[in-house]
């Protein structure tokens, strides 16, 4: 069995779901779970030392391979995708979805594209998946989003054009690499001996794509608006998985291909990342819209992750990957909590909330756990990542750790403030039913994952470390 099975499953799911009418959600969930199972089987194959890679010639001229690599890093991201996908699909079951077959089909398609992005070992293939992921989310946000239609269009189109713009520069970079290497295989590209100047431009070209996708400040302006306008499932896909595409790509493509530039720019991008962390935290403080607040919190987190990745140390990168995975889960959970509230109050305006705890103790507890996980309380998965990243930063320069570490203060500040304003206080006049079984299960699964890996991150760690080591070997080779 090789990794293409997941892609085939997801693509098949897309098609089947498209034609399954009212039961689309269940079909999609089934395919999501199937792909999760497949990924787990793949994982065990990988751990057993079996090859799960795919390498087939797609075209002779230009030399393009259908190459999928399942190394530890890719598998970790694949697992993140395939485990979040069923959760996201399941999470929508509580709300009315118009035109469900298209909706779920688009979600699966997006999963397909994202999984492909994580697996692709051929630059061309990778780029195709990368761009492909943009289309479903565009339609999901456009058609199933909320808020004023005009505003939504503006935000979504901006998002699309902006991210597309960034990736085109990456495409130009790939085109250049192709002329040098004659194919797109990541191994070959990493082995290219590019001149410093070439690396500089390639790095910048890739950076344009990744900085917008991740997003790093000041390229983040699309983020909050889209998160706010997209339907929650879309926001989850965006924040839970798609953001990680950019971060993953930094590791997989940007660093090994342009190692000199990576080293030369390291400090700059560390500062970018850390500045984003602080900036995101501060802006989040005064947000009125719950989803926007979470968007900025996400901005803060990915800034730190990016900083971790750019430390070019094993710890930093490993922390970044751990943090990517944990952030994926926690942010999905948080957005789901926002959705739970929205289902009952039909608003995301924080000022209209408050006093929910009295009526919904189960929800409160779960929400609080997610909030705490997001502020990286020890024993949660997020702590492991954040600790590792901050530690790596401290080995570069203790000031990076101190300033980056401000996020644990500011993060606590805005998250708890949000929690207080949303959940606590005098009983809200509007009734608030506690979690349904479906909602509770969704959140419980996420929380379970967060705690389990918070206490026992070793499996993931063991999975990703060899590939990270390998990437850094490429990057740090002189």
């Amino acid at each position, binding site marked *: 069995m090789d990794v293409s099975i997941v892609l085939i499953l997801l693509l098949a799911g897309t098609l089947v779901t498209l034609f399954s009418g009212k039961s689309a959600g269940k079909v999609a969930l089934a395919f999501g779970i199937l792909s999760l199972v497949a990924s787990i089987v793949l994982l065990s194959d990988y751990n057993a030392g079996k090859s799960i890679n795919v390498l087939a010639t797609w*075209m*002779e*001229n*230009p030399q393009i391979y259908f190459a999928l690599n399942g190394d530890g890093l890719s598998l970790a991201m694949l697992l993140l995708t395939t485990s979040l996908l069923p959760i996201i699909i399941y999470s929508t079951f509580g709300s009315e979805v118009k035109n469900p077959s298209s909706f779920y089909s688009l979600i699966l398609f997006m999963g397909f594209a994202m999984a492909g992005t994580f697996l692709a070992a051929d630059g*061309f293939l990778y*780029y*195709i*998946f990368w*761009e*492909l992921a*943009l*289309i479903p989310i565009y*339609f999901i946000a*456009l*058609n199933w989003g909320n808020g004023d*239609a005009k505003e*939504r*269009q503006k935000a979504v*189109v901006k998002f*699309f*054009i902006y991210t*597309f*713009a960034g990736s*085109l*520069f990456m*495409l*130009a970079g*790939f*085109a*250049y690499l*192709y*002329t040098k290497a004659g194919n797109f295989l990541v191994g070959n590209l990493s082995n290219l001996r590019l001149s410093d100047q070439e690396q500089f431009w390639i790095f910048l070209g890739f950076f344009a794509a990744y900085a917008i996708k991740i997003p790093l400040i000041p390229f983040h302006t699309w983020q909050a608006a889209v998160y706010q306008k997209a339907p929650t499932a879309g926001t989850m896909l965006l924040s839970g998985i798609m953001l990680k595409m950019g971060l993953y790509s930094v590791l997989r493509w940007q660093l090994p291909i342009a190692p000199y530039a990576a080293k030369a720019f390291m400090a700059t991008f560390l500062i970018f990342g850390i500045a984003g962390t602080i900036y995101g935290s501060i802006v989040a403080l005064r947000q009125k819209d719950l989803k926007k607040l979470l968007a900025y919190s996400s901005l803060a987190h990915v800034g730190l992750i990016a900083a971790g990745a750019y430390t070019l140390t094993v710890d930093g990168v490993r922390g970044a990957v751990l943090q990517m995975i944990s952030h994926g889960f926690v942010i999905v959970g948080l957005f789901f909590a926002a959705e739970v509230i929205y289902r009952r109050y039909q608003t995301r305006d924080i000022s209209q909330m408050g006093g929910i705890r009295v009526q919904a103790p189960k929800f409160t507890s779960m929400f609080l756990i997610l909030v705490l996980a997001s502020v990286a309380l020890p024993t949660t998965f997020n702590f492991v990542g954040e600790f590792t990243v901050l530690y790596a930063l401290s080995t570069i320069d203790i000031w990076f750790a101190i300033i980056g570490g401000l996020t644990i203060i500011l993060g606590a500040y805005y998250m708890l403030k949000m929690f207080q304003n949303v959940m606590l206080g005098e009983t809200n006049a509007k009734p608030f039913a506690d979690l349904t079984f479906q909602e509770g299960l969704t959140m419980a699964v996420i929380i379970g994952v967060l705690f389990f890996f918070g206490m026992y991150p070793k499996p993931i760690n063991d999975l990703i470390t060899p590939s990270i080591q390998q990437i850094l070997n490429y990057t740090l080779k002189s």
Partner: protein
Amino acid sequence: MNTLLAITGLGVLCLLLEIANVRKAIIPLTIVGLLGTLGITVADYGKVESHYSNMIVTNDFSVSFSALFVVLGIFLIALSGDFYRDAQTKISDFVSIKLFMLAGAVAMVSFGNLSMFFLGIEVLSISLYILAASQRLNIRSNEAGMKYFLLGSFASGIILFGICLIYGAMGTFDIVEISELTGSAELPDWFFIGIVLLSIGMLFKIAAVPFHFWAPDVYEGSPTLTTALMSTLAKVVAMATFYKLLTGMNANIYYEYEIVIMVISIASMTVGNVMALRQASIKRMLAFSGVSHAGFMLMTLLNIKTSAGTLLYYASAYALAGIAAFAIVLYVTRNKSNEDTYNFNGLGKTRPVLAAVLTAALLSMAGIPVFAGFFAKFALFTSNIQAGYLIVVIAAVINSIISVGYYFKVILAMYTQEPTEDKKPVPFLFYAVGVVAILLNIAIGLYPSAVINLIK
């Protein structure tokens, strides 16, 4: 040669069928005939032959492009049936003009002598003048025809002048002889002036800046089917011919000339895209988009030795997307007085398949993966980086970004606006043409090498 004969024969057959009063049979018969022609054309693949004193040559280039033209021709003729439903009496005229035009197009890519080229381009142009003005009670159509005619004859004059100077320099019209002579030291300067004038004429035909002014007006005013024809077939034909002229005559393109092409290419992309942003009429928008695609296709000339395959691929991708898009535009603007974007409101709800086809077509034009337009752009980028023209690539990248803006305007209208009217029935052929064209587009998007390696 066979292709040319077959198509011309079909054209005459059309006229005969009209006389025989079997109008209904015209379109099906033509399509079948064209499919046969396609077979004849493809059968020639791999041969290198010349016919009749080297007037017509058959090689991979001509066969591949001819096949593309025939395919496009089939689509366009398939759409004609419904489009001319109010002018049944003239249907044979329309179809035969299109067939003759197709013959002109084939002649343009398979010429071995400049006279064939000139006649081919004139057949094509005159057919287009006629088709543009063919709604003779519609002043807009008249105006479009007039504009196209005037500017087109003007350009023909310049092309003719160019041919004349080449003849003056070489003493022959045969491109093989010309290309042999270009190697000699005693090359009169007239040759280059001739090439430049010829190029200008061709730049006009493909609507490159600053010779593009006719395009939006003519596209807008012409009957929509004609617009489809112009923006797909005519543009691709002109570009292929331009390419063939330069390579066939071994015009030994020198640096300054490349600079000019580069500047025009960048200008076309930029002007086309920026202007397209603010157009209310979708036909006008597609016209400007066509201008920008002309700029993209011009990029192939900067790496002329190796980019024939790329050009073929880009042309196919662009034309197929264009056909698919126009099939939907034709449906939507049926019985409408204009082609403004608001007509597309809510198409995603009333006609999801058509909307999906149009969306895919626009995405292809914007260069989003799996659609052929993406790979086309990518191939262009690669070939231009190879040639060292990074600036063009960067300009192309920036322009691709701008282009998303207007393509998405239509997509937005389809999916986010409420429908303004009830469903109308969709003629089967519209569905068929749109879906088949976009499937072809996706197919070559997934297997680019199938097309890109046709011309070695």
